[in-house]
């Protein structure tokens, strides 16, 4: 599909979407100032959302968005993994399972399928959304719902130059301080900033609104204490956990299992 796909010096890239809203691929397309450079610097072999006639063979980097939600997608992901040297999970659906996995492992998936679609049988079997690393090794993670350009572009540049992308091991609160916002928790308002991975620039608190956790769980967080704090604001424990699960997907289970 790219005109100079014979250029061996450029890393070959495939950009794929499984089940999600296409927001992470769209974020890349929305890098209006960089998109032409991205297409020039990389040999983009497959990016079906933006281009026809993909070339599906071996590649250096695969960026995969979305959760695995059908048998067909599972097969597709395994096949992408085989063909790629580096696989990057992009977005909350790919990294933790997405909002479609908020009831992960609670056993309600079948009933909920039935509620929406009745007894219909589909040509590919549906399954509850799972993150990519439930099936394949993931080399790098770009969290976010959707990912941010501030994290995505440095990752792409590093991969372009054969370097390892840097992790960003800070919570939303860290970025909220950099924005000099007044902490919502001081006013006894709900916020999931302390439990959530940073990278968005703390946009929601910067609009005076709570972080709802869309970057997924921050592994260093003290879940126990934060749940207690929010309970002291008058919320029930069930409600707090329900909200934590909205964007926590499968990965949240390990953090809340003892709460």
């Amino acid at each position, binding site marked *: *599909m790219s005109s100079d796909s014979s250029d061996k010096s450029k890393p070959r890239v495939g950009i*794929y*979407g*499984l*089940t*999600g*809203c*296409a*927001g*992470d691929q*769209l*974020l890349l*397309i*929305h890098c*209006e*100032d960089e*998109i*032409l450079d991205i297409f020039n610097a990389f040999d983009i072999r*497959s*990016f*079906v*959302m*933006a*281009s*026809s*006639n*993909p070339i*599906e063979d071996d590649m250096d980097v695969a960026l995969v968005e*979305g959760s*695995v*939600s*059908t048998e067909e*997608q599972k097969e*597709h992901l395994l096949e992408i993994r085989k063909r790629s040297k580096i696989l990057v999970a992009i977005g909350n659906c790919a990294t933790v399972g*997405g*909002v*479609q996995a908020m*009831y992960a492992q609670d056993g*309600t998936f079948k009933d*909920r*399928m039935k*509620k*929406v*679609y009745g007894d*219909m049988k*589909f*040509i590919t079997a*549906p*399954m509850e*959304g799972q993150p990519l690393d439930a099936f394949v090794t993931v080399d790098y993670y770009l969290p976010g*719902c*959707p990912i941010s350009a501030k994290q995505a572009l440095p990752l792409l540049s590093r991969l372009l130059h054969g370097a390892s992308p840097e992790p960003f091991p800070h919570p939303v609160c860290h970025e909220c301080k950099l924005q000099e916002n007044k902490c919502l928790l001081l006013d006894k308002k709900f916020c999931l900033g302390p439990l959530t991975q940073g990278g968005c620039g703390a*946009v*929601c608190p910067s*609009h005076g*609104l709570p972080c*709802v956790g869309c970057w997924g769980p921050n592994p260093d967080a003290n879940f126990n204490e934060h749940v207690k704090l929010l309970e002291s604001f008058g919320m029930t424990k069930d409600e707090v956990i*329900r*909200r934590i699960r*909205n964007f926590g997907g499968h990965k949240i289970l390990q953090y809340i299992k003892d709460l």
Partner: protein
Amino acid sequence: MTKTKIEIEPLARVEGHGGIKVEIKDNVIKDVQVKILEGPRLFETLVIGKTPEEDLSLVPRICAICNLSHKYASLRALEKALDIKVPAVTQTYRQLMHHGEMLESHSLHLYFLALPDFFGYDNAVAMAEKFGEVVQNALALKKFGNKIMRLMGGRMIHGENPVLGGFGKLPSRESLLELKEEALHHLDFAMATIDILAGLEVPDYLERDTQFICLKPPHGEYDYYGDILLASDGKEYPLEDYKKVIIERTVSHSFAKRSAYNDRPFTVGAIARVLNLGDRLKGKAKEAYDKLVNERWYRNPIYNNFAQAIEQVFSLEDVVRIVDELLTAEIPKIVKPPRGSGTGTGGVEAPRGTLIHHYTIENGVTVDADYITPTAMFLDDIEAFIRKSGETLLAKNEMDGIELKLEMVARAYDPCISCSAHLVTVDFE
């Protein structure tokens, strides 16, 4: 050598994972399926037991390109359910927000997803070599749409800023003035686009009659929201009755539901709006309408691309009008819900068509939710136009490059699914 099956998978340059399958037997088309293989996400069940605030964070994730339309439709439904009456100026800010999405989505579709077909390219970046200026201007226009979305939404995609009863933060005077200036600047390119399109040849192999549905704005102007469904047969229905008007069903080749009106397929989207409401257009948008619209539009969805171009002009002009209005308006406060229970149906015109959200809230908790997306509404219509295309091309024995021709029909609707990658396969016998 006759084809017995045409299989187009993946359907490229659309949002989502879909394909087209056409079965041919004895030179007659037996079956047409637009397959939507995007996995199920069951949003209707995700929101049960949630507060309206959570619903509003979750629903934009149905679709990134029209994330604010989803938020907006939910806001309209939930505010009805909870009897929240926002001041007129809040509604005006929402219209500004929505123009951002129209500009972002229409420019993305028109220049990046649809136009490459007309000029024979795989993508818009490849097109940039010969049509550099168009691509650069299109990128700038899309960026402008995104700028409004970021300003009003809080983020470009899935922003939290629009909340029940108002907005977390409103734009400054300076930002509003900047928007006005930029809108005026982009208007030239939007009008130049009308001339580019006027010079394009639109294929006629697909033409057949269909029906058009859109929301009727609550005032006498062109707009993208309303509480009445307006059909091209002249009938009007209260939005709350949508289930009696738009009849849904499930099919096994698609995780998107299907819909019919009067037992027949129908079109929603820019073309439906322009055909149903075009006589309300004014200014440059009216000029654009007069240049482009003709009788063939009623039978040919490829003109949806053209209708989007007209709406780009309308939205840019309306941004200018809205900014002037907001500059002298009071700053609205966030309205708190007066009650915790109720039922409400909200409708907006998403870039690709009528979008309906419906909720029942009991004591502050969601007990029932229903969403009908534009793609679910027009999939039957796409299949009907693809069938017609196949029949015409088969009769004329013009089977070369038929895949692209069928893809163009589907792409014209600007469907919202999410992509995957397989190759186009054609079976010969």
